[in-house]
């Protein structure tokens, strides 16, 4: 097992496993973060003064502190309060809470782009706030902001590498394990970097394809 290709055959299955964990974790965090981000946007634009202040502090806090520090706090806080949270749940929750702050900002611009007339028309038809949000606003917001949301998912994937410190076997952790088996840090970490690059590049291609297709249609 001296040449690179046979070693790569050893890395390959483990790294694919890790990449799937990373992807799965990030997509989960992203989806939960989307729901939280919509809520956060609604609170930020709601009537309650306290709500507006909360949303502002929330966004400032999660954008102003490192993901690693947020993760450590979130992982150890429940156990100090006597709850036992599996690392995977803590990681997904930390990613969701973090990306919600960024997504609320992205979504705001989407919501702002929808004509006021549509909302007025919806209220004339007595559609109700919930239905207006779900059937009129969100589909358009999602379409308007999808390229930005995809680039946020890319950021989530990159920032998710730190979940390896709470022993989640994501792409980063798996490569650390491979390094301790093979003692070939340069090679393994470069290959792991390539895996990340593949994930983020594919998403970025997808994002620009979507953007181009929708611009043609408009």
């Amino acid at each position, binding site marked *: 097992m001296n040449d690179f290709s046979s070693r790569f055959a050893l890395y390959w299955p483990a790294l694919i496993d890790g990449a799937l964990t990373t992807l799965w974790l990030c997509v989960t965090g992203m989806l939960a973060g989307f729901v939280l981000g919509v809520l956060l946007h609604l609170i930020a634009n709601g009537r309650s003064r306290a709500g507006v202040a909360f949303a502002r502090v929330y966004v400032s806090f999660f954008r102003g*502190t*490192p993901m690693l520090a947020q993760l450590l706090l979130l992982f*150890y806080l429940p156990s100090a309060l006597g709850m036992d949270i599996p690392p995977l749940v803590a990681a997904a929750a930390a990613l969701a809470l973090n990306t919600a702050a960024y997504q609320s900002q992205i979504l705001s611009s989407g919501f702002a782009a929808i004509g006021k007339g549509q909302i007025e028309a919806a209220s004339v038809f007595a559609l109700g706030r919930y239905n207006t949000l779900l059937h009129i606003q969100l589909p358009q917001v999602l379409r308007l902001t999808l390229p930005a949301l995809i680039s946020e998912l890319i950021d989530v994937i*990159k920032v998710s590498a*730190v979940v390896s410190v709470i022993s989640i076997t994501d792409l980063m952790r798996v490569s650390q394990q491979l390094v301790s088996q093979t003692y070939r840090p*340069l*090679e393994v970490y470069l290959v792991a970097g390539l895996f*990340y690059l593949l994930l983020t590049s594919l998403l970025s291609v997808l994002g620009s394809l979507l953007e181009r297709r929708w611009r043609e249609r408009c």
Partner: protein
Amino acid sequence: MNELIGYLPDFVDGLLVTLGISLAAAVAGLVLGFALNAARMAVPGLSALYRMYVWLIRGTPFLAQLAVIYFGLPVIGLRLEAVEASILSLAVYSGAYFAELFRTAWASVPFGQLEAARVHGISRVRVFWHIQTPQALAFALPLLGNQVILTIKESAVTSIITVPELTMTAGRIVSTTFSYVMPYALLVLSYWLLTSSVAVIARWLGLRMTRHLRG
């Protein structure tokens, strides 16, 4: 609680290390970014190389880059101390972001000005320094603070390779006191305070240094 107050000096030390490596890396990254952008414009053949650099750095997590530099480079005989490796990787990392910021800033200068300068026979070097740079920097200045904040946030990752900065300090306090919440809460608050202060200072500086443009 009381014993935590005893750890406050450690926290201040950690804060200073965080600030030190972040600022050193941000300054190096700023210079690197400026040079990359200038090189891209001066030598057209470099622009593919430039795009490749930005793609590699912005497409991978900082932790992976740090791992390559700190754990990987010794394989080819380049052994760096944890702090050196951290500053180097943070500089390489933020350099890509600074370069992209400068690229946008230079693109913001209207092309007609460059054509006009060329018609008047002004050399390319003079166009760069006397026409593009002042306007581009005025564009970039208010945005530089964000990049510094990004660098400060990423510097937390260097705790993984045992750089005694804020996050590492909090982790050490946790492992000696077995109280988890307070040190980590204090940690998050310290970062928040730090990045908020940088944001305020950057905004103030940005407004001040572009005052002449608003008349």
